[in-house]
């Protein structure tokens, strides 16, 4: 997962980095548009060849590369545990908010890395009419079962998005919002997903978006690829729980798979209530068994898509599989 904070930014100048366009002023009088690379927050899971999560790995067990350039990791966290700071000599110590600055002035608080901000996007369009209440039950169970450190928001959508329950750690408040959802008409899934990602991007720390939908989109103006690009750039994994039969709508099935795999999430096809519960359980496990590192990217002339590689350095690494986002595009501001 990649996220941004305003604590530090690298503004590459054409002169310093020898890059053609990066700092070329588009507007000579006031705004200057530059490529801005903020701190990168990357979450990933490590599994063995049987798909079991590998826990307990240390910061020194990993090497992070961007376009092949090794990165210097700033913080490291496992699951919902508090992060540790990686010192110059490779030693670790508890992460202190004060060392990174006051949050109100653009710094990062320790809390920002504890728990996950979960945005549940619930399809209440006509397509979901029959499964509406069962879906609501499954989401309610998922919300109740989240780690106490997690915050959760429930958004619903049909033609428009509705912030049914805003991001909160108060489960009752969220459930109240969820139970207040209203059935709608057309389905603008990708529009709603984009707006959810925009909201999630404003929140510091780890975040994921979980889409609960049966697939067909009848009203979106944005394409799934554009939405996926936003998720990639913002470092927000998309998990999809589709309540439709995967063979019935091959277009949506393909799109869902690509959306989730390219952002570090997963897609579940769960037609029955029981399968939906299991899907949510799997997502919860994913969240609880992930590693999160932060780093400031090393100078890199690539202003397009930067490929991220996570290498496990332990002896057993060959048997391990890392699930992480493939990369991101630095933001132009």
């Amino acid at each position, binding site marked *: 997962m990649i996220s941004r904070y305003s604590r530090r930014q690298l503004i590459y100048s054409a002169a310093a980095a020898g890059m053609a366009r990066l700092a070329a002023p588009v*507007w000579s009088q006031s705004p200057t548009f530059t490529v801005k690379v903020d701190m990168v927050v990357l979450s990933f899971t490590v599994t063995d060849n049987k798909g079991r999560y590998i826990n307990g790995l240390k910061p020194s067990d990993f090497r992070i590369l961007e376009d092949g350039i090794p990165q210097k990791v700033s913080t490291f966290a496992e699951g919902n545990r508090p992060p540790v700071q990686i010192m110059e000599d490779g030693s670790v110590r508890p992460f202190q908010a004060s060392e990174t600055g006051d949050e109100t002035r653009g710094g990062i608080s320790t809390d920002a890395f504890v728990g996950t901000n979960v945005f549940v996007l619930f399809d209440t369009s006509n397509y979901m009419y029959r499964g509406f209440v069962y879906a609501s*039950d499954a989401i309610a169970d998922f919300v109740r079962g989240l780690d106490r450190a997690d915050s959760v928001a429930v958004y619903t959508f049909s033609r428009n998005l509705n912030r049914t329950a805003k991001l909160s750690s108060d489960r009752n408040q969220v459930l109240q919002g969820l139970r207040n959802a209203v059935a709608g008409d057309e389905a603008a899934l990708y529009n709603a997903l984009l707006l959810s990602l925009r909201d999630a991007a404003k929140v510091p720390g780890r975040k994921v978006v979980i889409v609960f939908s049966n697939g067909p989109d009848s009203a979106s103006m944005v394409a799934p690829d554009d939405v996926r690009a936003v998720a990639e750039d913002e470092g927000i994994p998309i998990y999809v729980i589709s309540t439709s039969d995967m063979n019935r709508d091959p277009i949506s099935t*393909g799109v869902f798979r690509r959306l989730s795999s390219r952002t570090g999430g997963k897609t579940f096809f769960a037609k029955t209530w029981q399968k939906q519960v299991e899907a949510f359980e799997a997502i919860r496990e994913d969240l609880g068994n992930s590693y999160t590192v932060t780093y400031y990217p090393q100078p890199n002339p690539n202003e397009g898509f930067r490929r991220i590689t996570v290498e496990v350095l332990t002896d057993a690494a060959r048997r391990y599989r890392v699930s992480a986002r493939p990369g991101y595009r630095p933001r132009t501001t």
Partner: protein
Amino acid sequence: MLRSVTGIALMSVGAVLLCAPASGWNESELARQVRGLEMNGDVRGARQMLQRALRSNPRDAATLALWAAFLDQRRDPGAREAYEQFLALPALNPDLRRDAGRRLALLELIAGDRQAAERRLANLPSPPVLPSASEAGSGLPMKPIYIPGPMRGFSRMAALSPDLLPNDVMGALTRNVVMNGYHAVGGSESLEQTEYLKLVLRYLSQARELEKFAGESRQIHLPECDSAQTGELLKILGFRMRGGCGADVVLETVNASRAFLSMDSGFPLAQLEEALRTNRPFSHDWSPTQIPVLYGPEYWLSARERFTGETIDAFLGDPSLCRLYLGLVKLDPETAEQVRQHMPVQRVRAFAHVFDFFGGMFQLRNGRVVAPGGERSAAAWADLVGSHPNEGVVFVEKLVTKDDGWMASYFDALSRISGPAVDYLTEPNRMKRFYTALRGRITSPGPARPVFRANTDLMLLTTRIHVLSDGRPHIPGGIDVWKQLFIKHPHGKYDGKLTRAASGWSQPDDVVEALFALSRKAVENEPLKIFLTLTDIDRRRERPLESATVDRLAREFRAYGAQYSLFTEAPSLSDATILQFMDAASAVSSIRNNVMKADAAGTMQALTGLWQVFVRQGLLPAAQADAVLAGLVEPFTTRIRNDQDLFDAGRDGVFALLKATGAPAEVNPHDRMIDLLAGAPDARDEESLGLLRTQMLRVFEAQRLVSLKVIFDLSEHLESLSRGEKLNTALLNRLASRVSDLNLPKASLTTTEKNSFSFGYWTERHLDAQRKLNFRAVIDRAGGNAEKLREARGLLAPLLRDTLVGLLYIHYAPPGAQILYTNSLFARSHDFIGIQGTQQTWKSTEVLGTGWPSSAGGRLVGSLSTLPYALAEAEQNFLIPSREQALIWGDLVPQMLVSAKLPRWWRVTPGQTHWVGLHLRLGEAALAEAALSPAIRTDVLGLLDRFAQPARWKRVAAHLEQAQVAQAIEQVTPSEFYHLGALVIEKQLDVPGGLHAKIAELANADPERHNHAAISAAFGTPKPTLANSLRPQLLNLRTFPTLMGYSSRILAETWESSNLFYAALSDELGYRPSQLNLLIPEWTQRTVEQIFATHLEDWPALLRSMHVIAGQIRTETRKSQALEEQASLE
């Protein structure tokens, strides 16, 4: 009551005291200084100056009066207190005391504080007596029926706004049933309930079970989790408990349809679950809800129906009964009562559709029908209808039952208009003639039969016909043009009978009669569109278009008609330039290569679109507008043979535009263009301008367009290379990096999937060509050949097209836009060709591709002529309703967004916003005064009659008769208040409060800016459908209903309140007019997100939303202003 000239001086406490002597401060000087600050937009400075003056002399009458008037004019909540302080002064001039006391009483009535007003008035010499408030006469007679359970659940299920007033609920419900409750089964006449209605009925059934469960206490009560009733309640709700009572208990669905109803209706399930988990009692009120029904159930239902079921079920089960209700509830109370008494319900029911669509304009006053044309036309109406208007309801009955609604629709259309057009159209002979044409020989189906009213063309014709000062209608080009058009139309005959008749036409009435005849047809009425478009072009021209020009425009309307708004917006265009534009469009259309045609059309349309913006903004001198447009289109008439020609035409066009706007020769063309599009290259408010520029540049960057500077530098560089100069690698890299970005994002679908589902073949070709563009390779291949290097500039033509098109996208980017920031190919993907066989190059802009995940997102297709609306339409669903179940309003919202974004307010002065604010305030004051003075009431209601429909007019009258000023104000829109204020001044009505004097002072101070024409241009709204122009203007029309073919789009164009309201709000809160460039889009977005409407004509919901948002803005702004003031003091 007319006010005397000498009375004017006494009307304003503040004004009177401006010249009074006082100690400490020289009041005249103080007033002058305050006025100077206000005119400069420094409202805060003016306020502080007054506060300082008051601190130095808190009991000075003149200063206090000035202070009170200042606060009053700006709607400050402290105004009443200031007046009270003023009135508390000893030894006050009795006249001043009386005026101030009366003004304060009016403010109290406006605030809804009747008791305070009564006390205040009692202290005045010869006090006016407030009429008593009673329910009688306040509207239609209503009696309650009951539905089970709370209103909230029913509202949610029946899609009713929770903000509806109780008396409006049944009308809204019946409308929903008529519109959404039934659909035809197959091709038969029988109707079937829709899912919407089935759910409402199921909900009522569940609600009755819950009512039974609640028992006589009307409370759904569970004492504890383990109680005997828990299972029963959960069974009704469709849930069961998982886990035993205690912390682990969870509600889960056991009966999906019941659970759906429980959840969708908003039953407090979360609270119930929490109560069960904590083993606390659960209570929920389930008292029945009272819904007022017009005349009570006995009028609507037979005895048997009343005996066998609930009234609500009878309505839900019978769409014709709902239509009948809808028809009667729209009538003004007197008409409705007469109809009820005179016509048997079964007879009314047979014509419910006519009452529903056209009854709203029927008006009985003292037993007589108010008919268009008044006394002069009464006999003609008697002849046509078969009853004289003086016969009251007999006339109404005959009007409605005569010809399946044609006569009623004619009456309705003529009732809505005023001015010279109504004089012309209601001349008795014409009336009969035009009605005969409209009615035709076969009357069925009538205009009230379809779901939407089908008299759209009739309403457009009567509203937009241009009657000249000699009382004759303007016929563009003269009668011969129209004769020839009907006789020899290039696309076939419009109407055989009219074609035969056309050869004998000799008078304007002949043409108008033909247009009436065509207005009855359900098919596309092209002649009317041509007529109204050309009328609108001529409307503001000094010399009307020549016959030859009109003839060509009429004949080529089908191909290029969407472009004519360009001519409407610039009345100084010569016939030659207009014809040159037509030649150019025709030449571009004849380009065979579709890729090049798209580039040529895009470039030409973008250049003319930029010209249109600059003319509208006043950035391009009117004297040059014609020559510049001629210069822009001239190359496209013959010279576009290849990409080099196209590039040269585009580049020259850009420089011609820049030069005409006064740009220095060496200016950076891109910077200057952005500056111009922002609207104010020389704005004094750098902060607002900077923010607007930043917004625009963010979109430019997100669209990854190539700047004009880079494109032109590169073309110059190619030229220099051809002269043997050295290669500029940096410049090439810069362009290459911009173009290489086009590779992202790639489509995630396979080629097969894309081919199966996507569209826009020519757009893909356009994008692919740019993806493959490698300038370095082109230069290498040229190998120093001067001619080839020069030719290479042709490769820049598609890039230039995209940048120019993109600049217009950026200029019109609506508030809350997301696509423009997300889909980096959106502007580039504009499809100027369209789907094969549709020939959309010159048609209106349309949104295509919504909901096609494989299409790389939706895109805009067609020309750029209606780009602002299409962009807003594409982006509107990204607005996020702030309230549950609220629906973004299909056709109204884009128009609102366009009205907020298209105008710019850089040239608006503080005096102009104050002018608007004062007029709105004066309109309100007139209404308040009308509550106190019967004479004023008659005058004010006479003026209001021009705007409000009869039923609403009667409600206002009834409220005023009972001194319910606040309630009366709620019935009137801001634009109506503005026009009412203007009419109060024009008619010299005697409304105290000093507002007249203040407005007169503004008019004298700057007559060029402080007049209604200038305000119309500043705070009007674009009306592309109604006036064929994007030029902002106020037309002061009655708000239109929804119409077949346009839905609520014309309604939206007649909604002129938003910008006036926001202008007044900015004046009230002391914002600079230049800030409106950012604030109005933002406030509009918030207003849209707050709307909770029940149906497409629910403009009161929009009004409510505006007031809610204004309340929030007032609170936020005053809070921050107070903090700023505190900080500055510290």
